[in-house]
């Protein structure tokens, strides 16, 4: 493990959403560390809490979501104890945000240059002309050829790929150390996805920026990230260097994810567990037990602690078996 203090460390974070049908336990003790200069992927299925984790860091949990306990430290400072005013200074300036669905992330009735100005002015007094100059440079670096035309235009005049470039330019205009991207390529077609990810990865590597990339696309993480956190039912089940985790997964869920991409096992007609996770009636034991081919009585009664094994972290009683490849790879 890396020993220097992480840029962002989330520890033991619990987030729940009280709803009329019961309390949804979205995060159940998520811990993750992001080190400076790394591109880090967070992966998992719908409802596993990957977006909620990102949103908690940014302080944009949708109501009625609330953080029950845990800590989020950025550059050693506890974000959960900061005042709104202090947080507003950190957001944007030190932590950038690339949301999903870029066209919806731009205000439909403001010119693009005004949206740059809004972000810049939220942080420091700055002249209109200076805003435009900064925006022009940022757009050029995001690979937009005619920045002036884009700046005068509106969101609806942009293609999805252009809009995402604009959003990336806005997210990085204040030179943040950490950028959180929440499914930045959903809604874009595949060739554009690749261009956007290439852009992000290349720029972030040369600018030594840190990226926390939330995605459900395993291929994206495998190709672009250094480290990975696999989440399931509001917990991190396995984490570590991408080559190590993907090369030899030690959690049955990670293994399932990889198989589903590599081997297209879903096409063989075999039964696979599906459907959304039930996060209201949160089980006592291992959250994955109900789907896991290796689950036994211990899995169902005792939640596995996350532990170090073979150079990565994993939360499974049977990790050694998975690592050895002994278990049925059905």
């Amino acid at each position, binding site marked *: 493990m890396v020993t220097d203090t992480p840029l962002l460390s989330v520890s033991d974070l619990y987030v729940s959403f009280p709803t009329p049908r019961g309390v949804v336990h979205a995060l159940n003790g998520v811990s993750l560390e992001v080190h400076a200069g790394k591109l880090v992927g967070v992966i998992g299925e719908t409802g596993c809490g990957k977006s909620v984790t990102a949103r908690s860091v940014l*302080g944009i949990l949708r109501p009625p979501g609330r953080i029950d306990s845990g800590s989020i430290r950025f550059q050693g400072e506890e974000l959960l104890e900061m005042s709104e005013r202090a947080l507003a200074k950190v*957001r944007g300036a030190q932590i950038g945000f690339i949301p999903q669905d870029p066209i919806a992330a731009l*205000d439909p*009735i*403001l010119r693009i240059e005004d949206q740059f100005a*809004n*972000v810049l002015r939220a942080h420091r007094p700055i002249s209109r002309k200076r805003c435009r100059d900064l925006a022009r440079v940022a757009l050029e670096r995001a690979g937009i050829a005619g920045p002036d035309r884009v700046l005068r235009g509106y969101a609806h005049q942009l293609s999805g790929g252009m809009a995402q470039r604009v*959003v990336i330019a*806005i997210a990085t205009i204040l030179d943040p150390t950490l950028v959180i991207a929440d499914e930045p390529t959903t809604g874009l077609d595949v060739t554009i996805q690749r261009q956007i990810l290439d852009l992000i990865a290349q720029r972030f590597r040369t600018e030594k920026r840190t990226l926390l990339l939330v995605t459900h696309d395993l291929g994206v993480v495998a190709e672009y990230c250094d480290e990975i956190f696999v989440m399931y039912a509001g917990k991190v089940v396995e984490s570590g260097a991408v080559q190590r985790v993907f090369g030899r997964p030690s959690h049955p869920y990670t293994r399932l994810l990889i198989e589903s991409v590599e081997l297209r096992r879903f096409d063989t007609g075999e039964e696979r567990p599906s459907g959304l996770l039930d996060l209201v009636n949160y089980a006592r034991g291992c959250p994955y037990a109900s789907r896991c081919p290796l689950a036994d009585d211990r899995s169902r009664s005792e939640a596995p602690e996350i532990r170090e094994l073979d150079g990565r972290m994993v939360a499974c009683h049977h990790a050694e078996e998975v690592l050895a490849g002994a278990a049925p790879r059905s």
Partner: protein
Amino acid sequence: MAAVSGMRERIRPGFSRPRLPRKAGFLVGSGFIVALLAISYFVPTPYPPNATDANQTFVPPGAAHWLGTDNIGRDVLSRVMAAARTDLPLAILGTAAALAIGIPLGLVASTRSRAAGLIMRCLDMLQAFPLLILAIVLVALAGSNIYNIIPAIALIGGPTCIRLVRSAALSIRESRFAEASYAMGSTTSEVMRRHILPNVAPNIVAQASLIVAGGLIVVSALSFLGIGIKPPTASWGAMLSDGRDAALIGYWWVAVIPGVLIFLAVLSFNLIADGIEGALHGD
């Protein structure tokens, strides 16, 4: 709203009715209001509006008096022009007051604060009253001062304005762009000022036009009852009231002309609001 009516027409084609295209309605409505204001402010009245003439009572519309004269020989055309200079500014000022109260309170009411709950409960309470009657009672109690009509209009228009701004602000707050702006360091009030208000503005303009229409009705109702605007100051409502007995014995013009003007002006403001709504929903 537009989508619903469109759907109904598709399902039951027999019940669809031909209607004026909204754009045309908007042009007609705004054209009428602009003409009304221009004529009353920039064209001199043919006679002094309050000048009486005992020899010229109940003169029918004709060459000397285009719209006739009333029971004490005052020129009806001059009086309706002068009345427009009283009634329309009052309705517009009342609307301005309604917006000045409604927009900030609506924004506050869209937050998850104690104040928001309080505002909404107060609105619920107000809803129990027939607001027009409440306004009439308030002006009557406060004394027959012309400016007491302005808060009365604000009382009637304010609540709808608060609800409109609140509901629009709630939906815009949940939008991805408001969220992204917040995540990039804007404070709640900056998000309101830079994203929510500009996005609600067209709806507010449409609503304002409706409040002006309602305000005009309040002004007319009050002056019809002899509250607020004192004679001999000309007002459409008061003219309608003065002329209603004469209308029964054949002198129709004294009452009908201000009545038609109230109707057309209120209709125009409604057409303007309808046109803006139509443009917002793309039809």
